[in-house]
């Protein structure tokens, strides 16, 4: 069971979780974008490896999509948007770095505790893949919660989505993976284009709770 293919798959998915942690503590916009590009790059490597190991050539499409679209196009586009709209370069993390990292570790532990016992019947590779994928999803959620800024929320969502792609490729022979990853890419593309077209600049700069109350039109 513990052959080289298994170890490499393990290494790649493990690195994805690690990069998710790196995303959590980035305090600068451009470094956040770069780390996200790395996240997508590791994902595409991992998916490509799965494609090779499972002998499923259609997964190469997903891997290529992750590489071209999420590791190159989106970060470059976001770079440009950030520069063009003059968005703040420093990011605040609501709860502080320390507690956020601790919470992240708790989530990883949680997903292992949840996932491993219920997947006894599944083969080991898919099983640990799923546990890691759930960690990446939860870390993405954590990032969306701890960031107030729209670009970092989008990054958080995209890292969450990378976790889902990881889970989908880990499930052996799952159909429609390519279609699903395309659907997700369209979703993200729309959002990024939407950010740019609508130029919701205020949204990037200040979103504190009081501003939200005003927008809700219920504070008289």
């Amino acid at each position, binding site marked *: 069971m513990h052959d080289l293919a298994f170890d490499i798959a393990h290494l790649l998915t493990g690195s994805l979780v690690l990069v998710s942690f790196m995303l959590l503590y980035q305090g600068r916009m451009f470094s956040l974008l770069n780390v996200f590009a790395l996240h997508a790059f590791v994902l595409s490597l991992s998916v490509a490896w799965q494609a090779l190991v499972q002998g499923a050539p259609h997964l190469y499409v997903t891997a290529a999509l992750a590489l071209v679209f999420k590791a190159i196009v989106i970060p470059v586009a976001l770079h440009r948007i950030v520069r063009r709209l003059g968005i703040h370069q420093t990011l605040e993390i609501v709860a502080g770095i320390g507690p956020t990292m601790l919470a992240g570790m708790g989530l990883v532990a949680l997903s292992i505790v*949840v*996932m491993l*016992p*219920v*997947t*006894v*019947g*599944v083969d080991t590779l*898919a099983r640990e893949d*799923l546990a890691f*994928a*759930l960690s990446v*999803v939860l870390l993405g*959620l954590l990032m*969306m919660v701890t960031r107030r800024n*729209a670009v970092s*929320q989008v990054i958080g*969502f995209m890292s*969450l*989505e990378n976790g*889902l792609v990881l*889970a*989908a490729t880990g*499930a*052996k*022979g*799952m*159909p*429609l993976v390519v*279609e*699903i990853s395309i*659907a*997700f890419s*369209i*979703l993200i593309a*729309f*959002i990024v284009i*939407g950010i740019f077209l*609508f130029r*919701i600049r*205020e*949204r990037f700069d200040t979103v504190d709770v009081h501003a*939200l109350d005003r*927008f*809700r*039109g*219920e504070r*008289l």
Partner: protein
Amino acid sequence: MTPLSFDAVMAVLAIPVVAAGGLALLPGYRIPARLNVVAAFLTFLASSSLFIARPEPGTYFLVDDLNIVFIVLTTFVGFTTSAFSASYIAHELDTGRLTPMYLRFYHAMYQVLMFAMNLALIANNVGLMWVAIELATLTTVLMVGIYRTHEALEAAWKYFILGSVGIALALLGTILFYVAAQPVVGPGLDAMAWTILIEEVAAFDPALLNLAFVFLLLGYGTKVGLAPLHAWLPDAHAEGPTPISAVLSGLLLNVALYAVLRFKMLLAANADALAPGPLMVTMGLSSLIFAAFMLYRRRDIKRMFAYSSIEHMGIITFAFGMGGPLANFAGLLHMTMHSLTKSAIFFAVGHIAQVKGTQRLSEIRGLTETHPVLGWGLVLGVMAIAGLPPLGIFMSEFLVVSSTFAREPLLAIPLVAGLLVGFGALLLRLNGIAFGEPHGGTGPAQASYVPMFTHLALALVAGVYLPPPLVTWFLHVAALLG
């Protein structure tokens, strides 16, 4: 598979796609608005023909007794809403809230939304259904933000973030379901097809199914608008164009609920998996009670009816969670009645907000004096939605309550309390809106009242007399739901 029935399924999907393409190209608003109505009507006809000639389930598409109810309801409300939209949108263009360019986009998106909802309902594949619901989310996000005011963008953003997280969790649940199915069914499309899953589900690993269902319930539950995942819903309803509020409340919430129901049926068919009922009962009940109290604090008319939608989705989820023939029957009936009534209310509210020039409850007063038809239409609609006899919702709520009393008397107490609290809030607000000293604009409404009164008449007829074939049909579906 007969050629005719195959065509009907294709037509339900293809007409909206073709119409969306055409509407994206056509300039002006009169012709596109009519074309939108015609396309929606044709889709409705095509879906009705599914009653007569039912196609065999295929690899990708499936029409069975359960989803045909949803499909016909969706296409019908889609059709009437498009008729309402035609009279609503002219005013938006006059006041400059929408430019012709955005209007083109709006009409095209309306048809894409119809396509996505029909696809989600008709899909025989959990992955395809997920893609369709994602598409529906995406189009509604774009439409909610179409006015491009700060509030609208804020609402669209919130909807996008929460909706995407919900959709993402649902996908994780779907993947886990596949992982559970794969050892038994084998890899490939079969392990995602309803028709095959429902036969084989008894042999799946129950622990994995449980985990998958929790994610699916949370994920699709976000789209249903169940508390505590409902936060996007009031904003999205309040800030988007009113036809979209009507479609969101009347249809899209149902589509998400349909997804939950399908998975509930799967879980129920596995003896060792956790019973999905109590989870749904809890979420439904908490949505109902939460929304009922929140109704008192609303100052915006569309937001108020959005909370009322949360309340009713709570009741429906509760009923389906209770299970059993009677509660399921009540849930189905309530869902149908809620779709008809709530969209009728939004039709009225859309025109009211236009003539009054505001959505603030404090500035809308004495409607029955200034605009008798709209005012009384709203009164009738709110009476229906609050659950007064002899309208349809009274009957379905009565059935929900009586079946709960018969089986779980303790649960009936919070249920009835929630219903009464919501009832009080609606009547209190209605009193202010419809009666009293007139306030706000008194200009004539350029409204078409036909869609609104058609829906209300249907709700009234259903409350008084349900045709026996319909009852038999619903009872049959209720038995299927388990």
